[in-house]
């Protein structure tokens, strides 16, 4: 895993201009993915994870949405944001494609499934419509849709929820993209179907050596599939690292709180399940200190005043939290470590 990253996002900043003011939805996000790797971006609703994925696909709509100038999205070293329209279109769908959350509304209700797949193939490859149709049937088969010859001429409303999501995936992988962004691909589905869809994404990733960016709010989904995890909060990545690091050595109280809010079978004491008090800050006027400060159990005076710097740990594990500052009293650090031991080890 020492090759060059396929996609590198640096200091991504996205704002939306609304009636009430400028909402700073994404505030300086950086991460990268390599081929064959799964990066999970996790966070609660409104933390900017979907906006981040849309920014990569240049789907942030002007004039309300604005990607700030300092942002960089480098695909194989080339900044997607500076590409001309034609290059951007070739990138979208051809090199990088996206699976949306709710296939019910993300598929065109008045267009046959087959046509929606063929459309993508014809757009990016020099291929006749007839051949594209053959490929579309193969794709439907590959994503596990029975009777693809018949299904290809049906409309989305004739598909079940899980089938629709499979069709959505068929559209996304139609051009063998190098990067696949899955924006909460399983949120709208039943639990049993969820697992099947995640398995499908994983097996396609293996087959095509695709880089996958998985947007989710569900640690269960992350645990089963991700290599790397980035935890987002209030438009920032508060912690990132390998799956093991994030699950067993979280360094940020928010990550810990998220982990604490997922029930685990190993826990002996079932009372442990926690909720995170309060609500995320208003991104129209984000706080000057750490955005999580007011919901944090270990909040110090400095947290309310200043933004923490990034602290690096071994193996590419980063976090933005004051707890790791050298001046922090041992007692507070110990408090955090004790709580962490309880949650991650289930003592």
């Amino acid at each position, binding site marked *: 895993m020492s090759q060059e990253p396929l996609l590198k996002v640096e200091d991504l900043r996205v704002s939306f201009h*609304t*009636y*009430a003011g400028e909402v700073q939805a994404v505030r300086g996000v950086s991460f990268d993915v390599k081929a064959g790797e799964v990066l999970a971006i996790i966070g609660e609703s409104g933390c900017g994870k979907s906006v981040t994925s849309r920014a990569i696909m240049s789907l942030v709509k002007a004039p*309300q949405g604005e990607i700030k100038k300092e942002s960089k999205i480098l695909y194989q070293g080339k900044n997607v944001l500076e590409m001309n329209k034609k290059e951007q279109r070739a990138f979208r769908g051809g090199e990088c494609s996206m699976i949306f959350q709710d296939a019910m509304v993300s598929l065109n209700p008045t267009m046959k499934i087959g046509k929606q797949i063929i459309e993508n193939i014809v757009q990016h490859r020099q291929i006749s419509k007839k051949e594209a149709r053959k490929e579309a049937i193969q794709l439907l088969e590959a994503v596990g849709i029975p009777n693809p010859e018949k299904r290809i001429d049906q409309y989305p409303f004739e598909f079940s929820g899980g089938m629709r999501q499979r069709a959505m995936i068929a559209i996304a992988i139609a051009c063998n993209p190098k990067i696949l962004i899955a924006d909460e691909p399983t949120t709208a589905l039943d639990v049993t179907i969820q697992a099947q869809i995640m398995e499908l994404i994983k097996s396609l990733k293996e087959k095509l050596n695709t880089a996958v960016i998985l947007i989710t709010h569900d640690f269960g989904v992350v645990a089963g599939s991700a290599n790397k995890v980035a935890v987002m909060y209030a438009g920032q990545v508060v912690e990132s690292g390998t799956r093991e690091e994030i699950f067993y050595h979280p360094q940020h109280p928010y990550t810990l709180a998220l982990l604490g809010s997922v029930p685990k079978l190993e826990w002996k004491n079932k009372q442990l399940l926690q909720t995170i*008090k*309060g*609500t995320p*800050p*208003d991104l*129209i*006027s984000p706080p000057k200190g750490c955005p999580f*400060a*007011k*919901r944090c159990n*270990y*909040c*110090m*005076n*400095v*947290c*309310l*005043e200043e933004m923490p710097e990034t602290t690096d740990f071994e193996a590419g594990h980063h976090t933005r939290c*004051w707890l790791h*500052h050298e*001046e*922090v*009293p041992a007692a*507070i650090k110990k408090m955090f470590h004790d709580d962490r031991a309880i949650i991650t080890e289930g003592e």
Partner: protein
Amino acid sequence: MNSLEDKRFELADQSKFDADEVVRPNISYWQDAWRRLKKNKLALLSMAVLIVLFVMSIIGPAISGQNYTTLMPEIKNLPPGRTYWLGTDYLGRDLFSRLWKGLRFSIIVAVVAASLKVLIGCIYGAVMAYLGGLVDDVMMRIVEVLNSIPYLIVTLIILVVLGNGYLPLLFALCITNWTSTARMVRGQILKLRESEYIMASAALGASSGRVIVRHLIPNTLSLLILDLATSIPYIIFDETVLSFLGIGLQPPAFSLGTLLSAGQEAMAFYPSHLLYPSLLLCLLVLSFNILGDGLRDALDPQLRD
């Protein structure tokens, strides 16, 4: 200073901040709507124009103080001048006063007929939605039958039966117009009744009275206001057409439509007789339309962008 520096890495006093605090104040739907409307300069302007038109339609005829009813053939078709600001018509009546008087009638008809339409439609629709079953079917069939003829024609027939005049015209205009409101109200109530938040509120033990007051009315009110605002221009159109055709009003009663009709006859030699009522009518309808658009943008949260 030093002590503050020292305290940097001490735990903050959590009791001092409320984690649930919301930085922006919560504002109600109506406050928000009003704020949006206030931001829409054009809508405010149209509201001002409407107020001016209303006031002028009341005091306009009195301002010039000239006769606008008796026939005085010796001063017919005068050009605009000091006594008759906009001149006189083919029977020697003051055009300035007649314009405002005609406007007054057009406004009265429009506002009254539109309000009645909304009221009748609202009651009819609510009854349909609440009673359901056979009653709903029959009442809906009546609506469908009424909708199977262009409603200006229904209005015509009713006017033929009732004869011309203020009251028949008013009655005829609102008796045919309410079907769209009734359908809308019925649809809205049925939709809301199925909606999960109403079910939730009923499940939590809210009485049906409370459901109506807290949920149904507020959620339907904005639709009704919009309906009222958008139907006024149409009713003005219809009234004008009927009066123009000589079916709505009987002389000496007159409205902008009657003035248009007279204007058409005089237009070859006195184009101003056609132009003044045309302009006034367009200004009135334009103001209502802009205000209606502004209201829609302000009242429909789904259109926010």
